[in-house]
């Protein structure tokens, strides 16, 4: 179960790594843009948090064909495909139809989660460890992520700041980033030009990509995070921006909305690594 937003010591906030990432993403969601969102879990929660708090005009589609829903809060547990998650959409279409909308260039942003990512923003959701024929852990496959990563103008990818997530070499490339990073790599395999990963967001940091080399670049740090700490949790070394942005900490209001309205019961968001920070400074407390 979720803990209260205000921590045990006065003036502190406690939250999970997933809640922190949700808030970081919510802070960069743009009003009046159209998002193609992975339908379940944290990516959708981030968009809904932004929509609920400050960007009511943000639109989104999900792969099963709902266009611009206004779901009812509190949301149900496991809202995969539930009628409540499609409530008051402007259209109910089909998977092929929303995919065509993405192929046509309507999707400003894609928003999804990755199990494993490399320096060019390619990512894996198929298997981890072992070989393709003898995987240690097999996962469900790309689902809707491949088309989001292939066709949206800019793709936002969330993952955890862990060494096993930021790897030199993916076990399997389920969805494309900038492929081998060479100019025109995506176009050479038939993907629409001018598309690709835009931000990678973790609980501790935010990354962009170099316009020329397409390598991942660290551009922001959470208030509690350090450069050394972030680099220690990556197998490859990213480029580092000249000036690192200091990201905002989650607010009490944001955490309350996540816990009471978006993921009541903490089914998805309370599982993870907890941290406690000073509410005023965002620095680690205690």
């Amino acid at each position, binding site marked *: 179960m979720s803990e209260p937003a205000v921590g045990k010591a006065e003036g502190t906030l406690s939250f999970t790594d997933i809640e922190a990432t949700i808030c970081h993403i919510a802070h960069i969601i743009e009003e009046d843009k159209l998002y193609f969102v992975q339908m379940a879990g944290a990516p959708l929660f981030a968009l809904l948090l932004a929509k609920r708090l400050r960007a009511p005009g943000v639109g989104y589609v999900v792969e099963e064909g709902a266009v611009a829903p206004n779901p009812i809060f509190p949301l149900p547990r496991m809202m995969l495909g539930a009628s409540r998650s499609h409530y008051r959409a402007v259209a109910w279409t*089909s*998977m092929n139809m929303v995919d065509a909308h993405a192929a046509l260039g309507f999707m400003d942003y894609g928003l999804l989660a990755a199990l494993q990512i490399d320096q060019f923003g390619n990512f894996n959701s*198929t298997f981890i460890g072992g070989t393709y024929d003898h995987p240690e852990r097999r996962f469900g*496959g*790309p689902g809707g992520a*491949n*088309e989001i990563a292939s066709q949206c103008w800019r793709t936002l990818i969330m993952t955890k700041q862990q060494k096993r997530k930021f790897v030199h070499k993916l076990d399997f490339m389920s969805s494309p980033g900038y492929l081998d990073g060479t100019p025109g790599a995506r176009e*050479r395999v038939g993907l629409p030009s001018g598309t690709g990963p835009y931000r990678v967001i973790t609980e501790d940091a935010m990354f962009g990509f170099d316009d020329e080399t397409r390598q991942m670049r660290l551009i922001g740090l959470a208030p509690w995070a350090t450069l050394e700490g972030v680099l220690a949790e990556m197998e490859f070394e990213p480029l580092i921006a000249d000036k690192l942005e200091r990201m905002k900490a989650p607010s009490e209001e944001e955490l309350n909305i996540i816990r009471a309205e978006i993921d009541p019961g903490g089914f998805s968001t309370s599982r993870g690594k907890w941290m406690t920070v000073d509410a005023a400074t965002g620095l680690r407390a205690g």
Partner: protein
Amino acid sequence: MTTLDIIAEGQGQYLKVDPDGFREWVRDHKDRAMVPKVMSEKEAVEKLVADGDYLVYECNYLQRGPSALIREVIRQRKKDLWVGAKFTWVAAALLVGAGCASKLDVGFFLFGPVVEQAIREGRVQAFEYSNVVMTNRLMAGAMGLPFLPVRSFGGTDGFKYSGAKLIQDPYTGEPITIVPALNPDVALIHVHQADVYGNARIFGTGISHVEAAFASKKVIISTEEIIDTEEIRRDPGRTTIPYYAVDAVVHLPFGAYPGEMQGRYASDMGHVIEVVGATMRGWIDKYLEKYIYGVSSHAEMMDKLVGYQRVKEMMGRATIKEGYGA
């Protein structure tokens, strides 16, 4: 004459592409007369699902899927099915766990120890796609075409283990990925309303029920409600699948159980946790015994293992009616 260059191609096995063969199947087997097609789920699956068939189903076991029909396929111990595992959670794993499936085209489904082990031991082969590439393939199949160009999927490892190819588009001169049409042997689709001829209405979002219905050689519809054809004719815009695509209509109220049927009933959360747990912890045998082999039909399962109180509670939680035909 110039030949079209294939720049790259996947090595995955794919169901033979044969649009003319499909046309002949339609000519010889699909009834163009409006004839009643109502039958029991036992009869429909006996008649229309054969060992070795390529099987697709629309939506999934937890959401407006043909859950009762999937259970009947398992109950009849069909073998060697090739399953189009797109946008699905537990159903593909149940089919593997029950020994019904030997090949999977993967879009997305809930893996777990049972499937992992089956793949490691070579009892099941997986071929890699994505949800949308699978619905694109069905779209091609439903259009009578051999393939469809797509703007996704290129450059991935999935491409290598699929039936996709990268070619130079003869119109723009640019590279483009093409994916093979899919014409399954059989499609299972659960709908809100249908008449006895198979004119069917689905309310809400869809994955690819229209494409699956037209792309498949044999189509079994299960329906919450059978309505008069006069009602269909009064509002034809709401018909999602017309009769000539359909081979069997099975009247199965609560046919999506334990999943949600939008506008009619919510999912049974207790059962959902039970079946997801069975899949993820390798207890599939226990689940199959209790809910499938241990009963003779959907009706018997609903009577003996679900019951009036839970049905009433599920219906009570389906508070959103707008757009679902109510």
